[in-house]
């Protein structure tokens, strides 16, 4: 071994011997373990009883269909969001319990019920999971599902790569979940504070889990970014010029340019840390020439663009939802595109504002302060544009619109507190305080609101039936009440001087507000139940809520509403021709809503493949082996991954052609099924006033004149 490890190590089992010393008597962990085991067993039981293993394998595990991959991305994100929320409940209860020197401790803790290092692991996992394994997969999932349909493509540019990206994300999630029961997790904050993450201060395997989970997951995100960018550049339907690209697609592009360029920086930062921990280099230690500030720089050079990587697609959701329910085109399209790109650009110049208090010179701090403020300009522009989109509109307020407007107000308040933080003179007072926590949760909640809005907005498109509105509104209001009750007290506590990451709260005057936050957490818990109930009721009543036309909201504007609901696996029977920025609104206006094309053509589609899943499994073995330093297993799985990749590269049989006749047959079936649902005849245009439409090469071509 090149480094001085505490505890046992053997060539066969690596550091797994450490587990013999761990006392598995912690009821908190034991409860989580039972939950996972029972849940997994029930799932397996259900799959066996309903005879669905084959279906699972054929339709989901080996699929390369961008819509199904997107759904799985979102599913992973939601599961991990639930895990992250459980961590949040633990953080809040611990802080509400462990106030003042007289507060008792239970379950082996001096105060509250979590000993310091366990609490530190909980908030580290909470932050890392919520950002990298909840928000990111959910947004990437939406990009996967919606963006290709929005530009009139059949699939992504690289369907196989797309599946690989998903399975690497699953590996990251799996490693974090394994860390819950086998060993421990990093206790150094989600940013991985050096030198706290170095071997002398984190001798266990926690930091290794953290490193490998992020490292492997971020490879998946980078591959996904390559794919999404290539798809937008190369796969646009005829007529889909850059000036007609839907705003969500633009934001996907902006966001993935950030991802493609920033994730490698994270890879390097964590890579150097890995060298420190595994081979005894001193990049980020205090001694022997190391410099911890270098890690902080590298981490935030990735970290701040990452923040915009997740927020820009959320802006894209708002730009799709608000015009639809305002019955108006988006105000200032060009401005919105420029603003998204400007945010992406500026995101690269602001990272140092995360450590104004590191004692940089006032010149440096002023530069980064002003650079940070510049982000406020395009963001402010966006807020104004959404407001003007609603101006002189005809506003309806179904759940997606409620979520969108909620995020608008969150953006305004979060933007204001962000501007406060960008001033070093203020930042010196509130840095590392719960004020900062309230600020960035405010911004991440904006993303959550926009994402929940997007779920409600595109659900009917993806699954063919609407979500229950009543429970959806209950979900919204409970969630909003929770948000207010958790984060207003948190901002207030920031002004009282409370800092973040405290497992023991020394000052009793903070307790009332901490208890108020508990009430907010209780409301959040109820809102989760409302969400689950909404899904269950909607699935039960799916026949009643079925969407008959292609357009679920009847005032939708972009291309994804031009195909069947739900879209067939080949998306469009014939590649559509685009005539306008808001193509579907334009067609509705010109009466070109028929779903029946002049003639059908052959369709070229990618074949299912199990290779991404196999590589994912091998990567999981590799990650686990590296965490526990089982070198033989790591080497074996790495070689296996390379071999599988080489074998796959010789596989020429990766795609197939659906003959035109068969396309016609499938289309007729979909059309008659839809007609059956409405009671219409097969050849009539479906969807009532809204209807659905396909490309007509003879449609008059004209571009919009802005008036």
């Amino acid at each position: 071994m090149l480094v001085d490890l505490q505890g046992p190590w053997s060539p066969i089992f690596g550091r797994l011997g450490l587990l013999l010393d761990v006392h598995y008597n912690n009821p908190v962990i034991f409860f989580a373990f039972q939950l996972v085991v029972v849940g997994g067993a029930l799932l397996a039981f259900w799959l066996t009883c309903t005879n669905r293993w084959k279906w699972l394998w054929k339709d989901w595990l080996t699929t390369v269909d961008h819509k199904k991959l997107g759904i799985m991305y979102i599913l992973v994100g939601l599961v991990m969001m639930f895990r992250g929320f459980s961590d949040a409940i633990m953080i809040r209860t611990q802080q509400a319990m462990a106030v003042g020197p007289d507060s008792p401790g239970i379950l082996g803790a001096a105060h509250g019920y979590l000993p310091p290092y366990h609490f530190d692991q909980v908030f580290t996992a909470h932050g890392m999971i919520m950002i990298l394994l909840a928000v990111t997969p959910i947004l990437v999932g939406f990009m996967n599902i919606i963006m290709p349909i929005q530009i009139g493509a059949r699939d992504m540019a690289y369907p196989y790569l797309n599946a690989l990206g998903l399975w690497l994300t699953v590996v990251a999630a799996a490693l974090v979940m394994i860390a819950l029961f086998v060993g421990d997790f990093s206790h150094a904050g989600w940013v991985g504070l050096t030198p706290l993450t170095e071997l002398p201060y984190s001798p266990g395997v926690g930091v290794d889990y953290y490193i490998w989970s992020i490292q492997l997951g971020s490879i998946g995100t980078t591959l996904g970014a390559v794919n999404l960018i290539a798809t937008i550049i190369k796969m646009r339907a005829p007529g889909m010029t850059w000036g007609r690209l839907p705003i969500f697609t633009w934001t996907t592009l902006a966001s993935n340019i950030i991802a493609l360029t920033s994730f490698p920086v994270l890879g390097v930062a964590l890579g150097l840390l890995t060298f420190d921990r595994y081979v005894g280099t001193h990049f980020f230690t205090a001694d022997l020439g190391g410099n911890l500030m270098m890690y902080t720089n590298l981490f935030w050079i990735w970290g701040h663009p990452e923040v915009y990587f997740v927020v820009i697609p959320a802006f894209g959701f708002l730009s799709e939802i608000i015009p639809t329910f305002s019955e108006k085109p988006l105000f200032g399209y060009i401005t919105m595109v420029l603003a998204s790109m400007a945010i992406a650009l500026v995101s690269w110049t602001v990272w140092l504002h995360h450590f104004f208090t590191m004692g940089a010179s006032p010149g440096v701090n002023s530069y980064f302060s002003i650079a940070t403020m510049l982000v406020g300009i395009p963001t402010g522009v966006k807020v104004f544009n959404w407001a003007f989109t609603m101006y002189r509109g005809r506003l309806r307020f179904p759940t997606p619109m409620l979520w969108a407007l909620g995020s608008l107000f969150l953006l305004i308040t979060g933007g204001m507190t962000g501007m406060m933080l960008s001033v070093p003179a203020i930042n010196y007072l509130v840095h590392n305080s719960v004020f900062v926590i309230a600020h960035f949760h405010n911004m991440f909640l904006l993303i959550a609101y926009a994402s929940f809005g997007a779920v409600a907005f595109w659900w009917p498109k993806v699954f063919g039936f609407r979500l229950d509105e009543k429970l959806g509104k209950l979900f919204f209001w409970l969630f909003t009440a929770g948000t207010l009750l958790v984060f207003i007290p948190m901002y207030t506590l920031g002004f009282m001087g409370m800092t973040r990451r405290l497992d023991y709260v020394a000052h009793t005057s903070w307790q009332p507000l901490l208890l108020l936050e508990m009430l907010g957490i209780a409301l959040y818990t109820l809102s989760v139940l409302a969400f689950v109930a909404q899904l269950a009721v909607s699935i039960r009543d799916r026949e009643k809520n079925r969407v008959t036309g292609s357009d679920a909201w009847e005032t939708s504007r972009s291309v994804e509403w031009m195909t069947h609901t739900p879209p067939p696996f080949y998306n469009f029977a014939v590649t559509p021709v685009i005539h306008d920025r808001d193509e579907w609104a334009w067609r509705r206006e010109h009466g070109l809503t028929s779903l029946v094309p002049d003639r059908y053509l052959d369709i070229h589609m990618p074949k299912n493949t199990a290779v991404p899943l196999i590589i994912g499994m091998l990567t999981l073995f590799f990650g686990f082996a590296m965490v526990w330093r089982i070198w033989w297993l790591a080497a074996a799985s790495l070689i296996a991954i390379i071999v599988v990749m080489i074998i796959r590269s010789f596989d020429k049989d990766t795609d197939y052609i659906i003959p035109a006749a068969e396309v016609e047959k499938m289309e007729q079936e979909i059309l008659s099924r839809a007609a059956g649902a409405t009671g219409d005849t097969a050849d009539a245009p479906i969807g009532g006033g809204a209807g659905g439409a396909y490309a007509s090469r003879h449609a008059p071509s004209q571009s919009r004149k802005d008036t």
Partner: protein
Amino acid sequence: MTRKKIPGFFRYLALLPLLFLGGCSSDFWLFNPKGIIAQTELYYMIVDVAIMLVIIVPTILFTVWVMIKYRAGNNATHAPKWSHSNALEVLVWGVPVVIVVVLAVYSYIGTHQVNPWNPTIVSEHAKYSKAKPLEVDVITTDWQWLFVYPSQNVAASNELVVPVDRPVNFRLTSTSVTNNFFIPQIVGQVYVMPGMRSKQSMVVQHIGEYHGFTAALSGGGTSWMEFKVKAVTEADFNAWVSKAQQSTDKLTYTTFKTFAKPTINTGGKVQYFTDVLPDLFGHVIKNVRDGKLLYKTPMFLTENMLSNEFKQHSN
């Protein structure tokens, strides 16, 4: 229309937020500065918020008005094609640009005024008060504070005593991981980093006892890593120095190494030292850089830890 729906009693619930005003007492440390640095920082916070509100309040009012006025069924003007206006484009870009320029100027000035390495606001104050600045070296360990007064030849752990109205200059370093020196009512934060030196200056204007602590996660003892700040008169300060000088504990490098062992200060223990090793501060930085002052965190402290072992490492 909502009047009748809400029973009279519950209507008063709307007044609940007023209770927050009750909190505008001394508990709001950031709004009760007792030193000139914190005061200046509060001033910039108020200016920043005020300027932002100039743009935010109208935006919120406009958005709410639009939501009410243009809801479907209200038969307000509907302009289904309207999506561009040059005048509004100028407005939507112009207003944020103006606000950001104004804020940027304030930010630039403020950053220099409270710059930890040489706060102009403190040097101006020093010109008038003519008092000689007090030099204090701050050394953090896992997880305690050591305040060394080189001129007075004393040191105190977990307690900082300073005279009022006299500038205090700090040099800060850490033996292990990064901490963050923060006294909310007196001075903003600056990182305390191992093998490196950072600086901070402050002037306390009011006699009293304040809370100081680390604002950065530094491991298991972070939450207990607090210190008392006592701002006293010049005479009381001198009396405190003489009292501390009577301590029998001498701060040689050997005793410092014992002190620096991982210890969680759950009891808020304070200790005084005399005969401080000359340039202990420089010594610590050099030894940390050479890797000679490295205390490994015991494995059981980072595993799923039980409280007995935890207590063995606290004082």
